[in-house]
C-alpha cells in the first residue's frame, strides 16, 4: 500500500500549501479591509504577532521572546507599508498580488540576504558543526571578499585566469549565437518553401530540456563512438592530404573541453537569437528595402544601413539576456566536464563557484564569490541597457 501512502502524502502537502495561502490571504484581507481605521494598527500589532507566536509554538518553543519581537517588527513593517504605499488606492490588485510577493520574498530575498550574511562570516567544513550546535559562526568582515580576489576557488586555476576565461567564453558564445542566429533568421526571412518545417527543426535544441540536449551532444563528442570523430575519421581516410594537414579524430572531452563546451553551447543558444532576430526582421516594413533599392544599395549595404539598425531595439535586450545566461551557464560546463572528477580546464566563474561550495565546502567563501559575480553581471547589464536606451533615443 505504498502507493496509497504516497497519494496521502501528496494530498496532505497540497492541503498544507492551500492552507498556507488561505492564511496569507486572510491576513492580507483584513489588512486591506481595515487598514484605514484608526484602531487597526494597535490591534494588528498585538493580535497578529501573538497568532504567529501560537503557530510557532506548535513547532517548537525556543527563544519565544526573541521570535515574538521579530513578528512584531515584521508586522510594524507591513503596517508602515500599508500606511504609506497602499493608502487610498484601488486595493484589489494588491490583495491579489500579495501572496506572490510573499512567495518571491521567501524564494529570492531571503536567500539573498542569507548569502550576504554568509559572505561576512566564515562557514566552512570545520565550522559547520559549531554553527549547527551553537548557532554562531565567526564574523570575519571583508576577509572572504579579499580571499575571492587573492586565492583560487579551484586547485589549478587562479581567480583572474577564471575571469579571463569567462570573458572569452561569454564573448565567443554570444558572438556566435548572434552570428548564427542572424544568418539563419535572414535565410528564414526569405520566401522559401517548407519555412515552417525548417523553423521547427531549428528551434528543437532550444525547446528540449537542456540536460537532455547537452548529454546527447556530449555523446556525439565521444572519442571513439561519437558522430563528430567518426565523420572526421572518414574525411581523413577519404582525403589523405587533409589527414596530412592534421585532420582526424580528436580527444574532444579531455584535450579540448572548453572548445567542446563552446560548440555545444553555441548550438544550444542559436535558436533563441534566431527567433528574436526573425521577429525583428519581420517587423521591418518592406518599403524601406524598396526605397533602398531605388537609392542603389547593394545587398550588404541594405544589411548594414537598414536591417542592422532597425533590429537593434530587439537585439539589445536579447544580447543582454544572452550575455547573462552565458556568463552564468553552469549546465553545459558541469554536464560536459564536471562529472566524475572532471577537469578544471573548462571551468568558468560560476562552475568554479559551484565546485568551491559543494566540492571544497567553502560556503562563506563561495557566498562572497557569488556576490562578486552578481556585481559583475549587474554592471554588464546596466552597460547594455544603457546602450539600448541610446538606441531607442535615435528612433
Amino acid at each position, binding site marked *: 500500500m505504498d502507493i496509497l501512502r504516497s497519494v496521502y502524502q501528496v494530498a496532505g502537502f497540497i492541503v498544507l500549501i492551500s492552507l498556507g495561502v488561505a492564511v496569507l490571504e486572510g491576513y492580507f484581507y483584513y489588512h486591506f479591509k481595515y487598514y484605514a481605521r484608526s484602531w487597526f494598527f494597535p490591534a494588528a500589532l498585538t493580535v497578529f504577532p501573538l497568532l504567529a507566536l501560537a503557530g510557532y509554538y506548535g513547532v517548537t518553543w525556543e527563544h519565544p521572546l526573541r521570535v515574538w519581537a521579530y513578528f512584531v517588527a515584521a508586522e510594524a513593517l507591513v503596517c508602515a507599508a500599508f500606511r504609506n504605499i497602499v493608502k487610498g488606492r484601488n486595493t484589489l490588485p494588491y490583495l491579489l498580488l500579495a501572496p506572490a510577493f510573499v512567495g518571491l520574498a521567501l524564494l529570492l530575498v531571503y536567500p539573498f540576504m542569507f548569502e550576504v550574511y554568509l559572505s561576512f562570516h566564515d562557514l566552512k567544513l570545520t565550522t559547520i558543526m559549531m554553527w549547527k550546535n551553537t548557532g554562531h559562526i565567526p564574523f570575519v568582515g571583508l576577509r572572504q571578499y579579499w580571499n575571492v580576489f587573492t586565492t583560487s576557488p579551484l586547485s589549478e586555476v587562479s581567480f583572474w585566469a577564471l575571469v579571463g576565461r569567462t570573458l572569452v567564453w561569454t564573448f565567443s558564445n554570444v558572438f556566435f549565437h548572434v552570428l548564427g542566429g542572424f544568418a539563419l533568421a535572414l535565410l528564414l526571412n526569405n520566401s522559401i518553401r517548407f519555412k515552417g518545417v525548417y523553423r521547427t527543426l531549428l528551434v528543437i535544441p532550444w525547446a528540449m530540456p537542456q540536460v537532455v540536449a547537452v548529454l546527447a551532444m556530449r555523446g556525439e563528442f565521444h572519442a571513439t563512438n561519437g558522430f563528430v570523430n567518426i565523420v572526421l575519421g572518414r574525411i581523413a581516410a577519404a582525403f589523405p592530404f587533409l589527414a596530412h594537414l592534421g585532420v582526424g579524430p580528436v580527444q574532444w572531452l579531455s584535450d579540448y573541453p572548453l572548445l567542446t563546451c563552446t560548440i555545444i553551447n553555441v548550438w544550444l543558444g542559436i535558436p533563441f537569437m534566431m527567433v528574436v532576430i526573425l521577429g525583428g526582421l519581420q517587423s521591418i*516594413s518592406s*518599403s*524601406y528595402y*524598396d*526605397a*533602398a*533599392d*531605388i*537609392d*542603389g*544599395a547593394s545587398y550588404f*549595404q541594405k544589411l548594414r*544601413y*537598414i536591417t542592422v*539598425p*532597425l533590429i537593434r531595439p530587439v537585439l539589445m535586450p536579447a544580447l543582454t539576456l544572452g550575455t547573462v545566461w552565458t556568463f552564468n551557464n553552469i549546465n553545459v560546463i558541469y554536464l560536459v566536464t564536471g562529472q566524475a572528477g572532471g577537469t578544471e580546464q573548462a571551468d568558468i566563474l560560476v562552475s568554479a563557484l559551484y565546485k568551491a561550495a559543494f566540492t571544497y565546502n567553502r560556503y562563506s567563501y563561495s557566498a562572497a564569490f557569488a556576490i562578486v559575480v552578481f556585481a559583475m553581471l549587474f554592471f554588464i547589464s546596466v552597460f547594455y541597457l544603457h546602450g539600448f536606451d541610446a538606441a531607442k533615443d*535615435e*528612433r
Partner: protein
Amino acid sequence: MASVEFKGIVKRFKDNTVLNGVDVDIKDHEFVVIVGPSGCGKTTLLRMLAGLEEVTDGEILIDALRVNELHPSKRQIAMVFQDYALYPHMTVEENMSFALRLKRTGRSEIEARVQEAAGILQLQKLLKRMPKQLSGGQRQRVAIGRAIVRNPKVFLFDEPLSNLDAKLREEMRVEIAKLYQRLNATIIYVTHDQVEAMTLAGRIVVMNKGIVQQVGSPIEVYRKPANLFVAGFIGSPTMNFFSGQLRSEGDRLLFVNENMKLPIPSFLLHDGDRHAGREVVVGVRPDDVLVGRDGAECSGKMEAVLEVCELLGHRENLYLKLGGLRLLATVEAFFDRSPGSAVTLCFNYRNMHVFDAATERRISE
C-alpha cells in the same frame, strides 16, 4: 529628363491578372496622372516602372531604352512612396543624402545638393530631425526632397497626399504644381483623388481593372469620356445615366424609355437613321440638368418632383424624381422650394453623352 513608354504591359500574380496590356506613351517633361479605383493596378504599374516588380509581359522603355531587366538604381528614377518610407533611424539630412553617400559622391557636392533641395522644400530647419519628430506634411516634403536630391530622369509619386488632411493636401498640391514648374521634370503621379488629377495633370490616364480606359488632357477626359466607366469615374458629383432605345420618328431621332422621350439633335449623333433601334445609355452631368430655367440648346421641358435638397454653400444638390427615375441636379444656391414640390427641368444638349449599351463606348460626338 526623359520619355517613358509602356508597351503591352501584362502583370500576373500567380494566375491573378492585374494588368492586361497597358500601352501608354509619356513624353519628356510631361506631368501624367494615373487615376482609377482602388485595386486597379496603379501602384503595380508604378512599381514595375521603378523596377521593384517583375514585368510578366511587354516592354518598358525609358528614353527609348528597354529597362525591363535593369536594376532599380540604374533606371534614374525616384519614387515617393505612399507611406513615405523614410528611414526611421536616419536624420532628414541622412535620409536625403543616402543615395548619394552610397554612390560615394564627394562631401561638398552632397552638401550642396541637400541644401538646394532643402531650400526648394523649406526643410533647412529640419535637417537634423528624425522622421518621427516631423508632422505628416513635413515627412512628405522630406520624401520629395529625397527624390529631388538624386536628380532623376523621372519622378514617380504614389498617392503622396492620401495620408494628409484636406487642408494640408490642398497646400501640398499647390507645392507640387510649383515644384513641377521649377524642376520641369517628367512626373508620373498616381492618385484616386479627382481634384488632384484634374488640377495637376498635363494628361490623365484613367485605368480600370488593369486596362487603360482613356488617355487625354483633363478637359478631354471630362468633356468627352470615351466610355461609361470614365464618364462615371471622372467628375463629382457623378453623372446621371439613363438607359433606353433610339428610335427614328420622321426625320427626328428620339431617345425613348418608360419615363422620357428626348429628341436627339444631329450635332450629337450624325446619320440618325443608322442608329435607330440601338440600345443606348445617355449621360448628363448634374451641372447640365437645368432646373426651372432655359438654356440655348436644350431638350424640351420635363416635369419632376423634388425629393431632397442639399446645400453645399454656393451650390445646391437637388435629388429629383422623374417618373420612376432618380436624378441629381446641381444649381446655384438658393433654390427656394420645399421637398415634394414639382419642378420643370431640361438637359443641356451641348454636354450630353450617348454611349452604346452593349459596348459601353461613346457614340456621340
